[in-house]
């Protein structure tokens, strides 16, 4: 446990000494400002925006996960590019512990960001069970994103290119809301779809249990799969 904390703390130092990383810490502040002031102002002024409030909320939930998705991805890519990753390959440390230590903090911080988002948004009243479970589910984007990016990108340059692609991929399921009926479920192949659906259900006062269940199972499967592939190549 001490090792895990120490490693998590080191990541902090790495982030705060790299301007290209720590500037991203302002992203959530921006999102909160949008949801507290800008969106209510616009909706108050233009009635036709009203039906899109759930969508805006959904975008904010996902964007909240993007900060640490980016930071964690880059910390790992840098570590690989500078060959520091190989050093982890020759220390007495279990690979699972390695993963936990790298994602523990980013994950819970992201959970916290979404809890704050649900609390400060002025549109709906969510109960705590929903807030907590949706936030726990949404934050799983962070490890999945960073692992996926590190499987495909070999260095920082490639990393920055794939970041742009993945930032779009996480939002693709939004299209589902403009697609009629049953077709929309096709977007379920994108894991973020189940986060979107959970939020949508809750805003409509419908139970999100099924959506959350599928979401957790889907994310767990994908994280298991990507982490195996990641661990096979990261330390070489």
């Amino acid at each position, binding site marked *: 446990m001490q090792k895990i904390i120490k490693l998590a703390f080191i990541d902090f*130092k790495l982030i705060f000494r790299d301007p290209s990383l720590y500037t991203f810490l302002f992203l959530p502040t921006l999102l909160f400002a949008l949801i507290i002031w800008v969106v209510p102002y616009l909706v108050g002024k233009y009635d036709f925006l009203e039906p899109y409030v759930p969508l805006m909320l959904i975008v904010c939930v996902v964007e909240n996960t993007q900060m640490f998705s980016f930071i964690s991805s880059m910390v790992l890519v840098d*570590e690989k590019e*500078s*060959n*520091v990753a190989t050093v982890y390959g020759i220390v007495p440390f279990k690979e699972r512990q390695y993963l936990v230590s790298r994602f523990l903090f980013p994950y819970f911080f992201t959970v916290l960001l979404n809890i704050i988002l649900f609390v400060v948004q002025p549109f709906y009243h969510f109960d705590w069970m929903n807030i907590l479970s949706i936030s726990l589910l949404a934050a799983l984007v962070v490890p999945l994103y960073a692992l996926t990016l590190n499987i495909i990108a070999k260095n920082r340059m490639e990393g920055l290119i794939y970041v742009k692609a993945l930032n779009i991929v996480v939002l693709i399921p939004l299209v589902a809301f403009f697609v009629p009926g049953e077709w929309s479920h096709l977007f379920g192949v994108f894991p973020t779809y189940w986060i979107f659906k959970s939020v949508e259900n809750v805003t409509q006062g419908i139970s999100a249990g099924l959506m959350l269940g599928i979401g957790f199972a889907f994310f767990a499967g994908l994280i298991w799969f990507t982490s195996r592939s990641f661990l096979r190549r990261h330390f070489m």
Partner: protein
Amino acid sequence: MIQVKNLVFQYPKNDGPTLKGLSFEIDKGEIFGFLGPSGAGKSTAQKVLYKIYYDYQGSVRVDGKSLHDWDKHYFEKIGVGFELPNHYLKLTGRENLDLFATFYPNGKKRNVDALFEMVDLESDIDKAVETYSKGMKMRLNFIRAIQHDPDILFFDEPTTGLDPVNAHKIKQHILNLKAKGKTIFVTTHSMETADQICDRVSFIVDGELVVTDTPKNLKSKHGKKAVKIELANEQSKEFPLKSLGENADFLSFIKQGEVRRIHTLEASLEEVFIQVTGKSLKS
């Protein structure tokens, strides 16, 4: 300590194997060296031995136990001095060392300040590694490898990128580690390094070991037991070392003019390498 038999290793994407059946042993307390040209497979062989690559054929036993059977405790026993600097550039030298020190049991850890002093980095200990020169980073590699006082050490080209003074110091430190009973495996393409520190060396070319012996034996087997005399008048002649003092030809030759140079015709390790392998170390 380490027994390797018929080690074959192929990189997944390559057509053929990089290591083509290596067999060698490293005894406890010895410095064993792989000497070979670039691309021969020196680093690859070490990577197999420190378990970065585990898809190999043949047998590798450490302390009598197959490498496959060793768990994470293996890494407490070994230290690796990587071929290239690999540190967190945004962290200081001390932070880099401390971070990796947390993975090892507390008892054996060496004092960090003393380690930095050992390689003349004491005034840089709290500076970010991005401000270090290549040679400084290599010295940091070296002390990171030994900070948990491991029994087995792998040094991949420990002196490349270092100036002669620092290279000499590192070699001296490696000899000191041997004096403490450590088992050490170095790779190098410097015949000088191999000659100075290795108890035994293997010549490796294209993934195969050509010969394994002590540097001394290799040199005496492949050199001539003779001296060459060069006079100031450009005349030169070779004489066998055997009963040189009674060799009348020799005695009269050195009286024929001013002697400019006398040298024994013992081969250098580099010459032996070229003779044995038909290849140059420099290519």
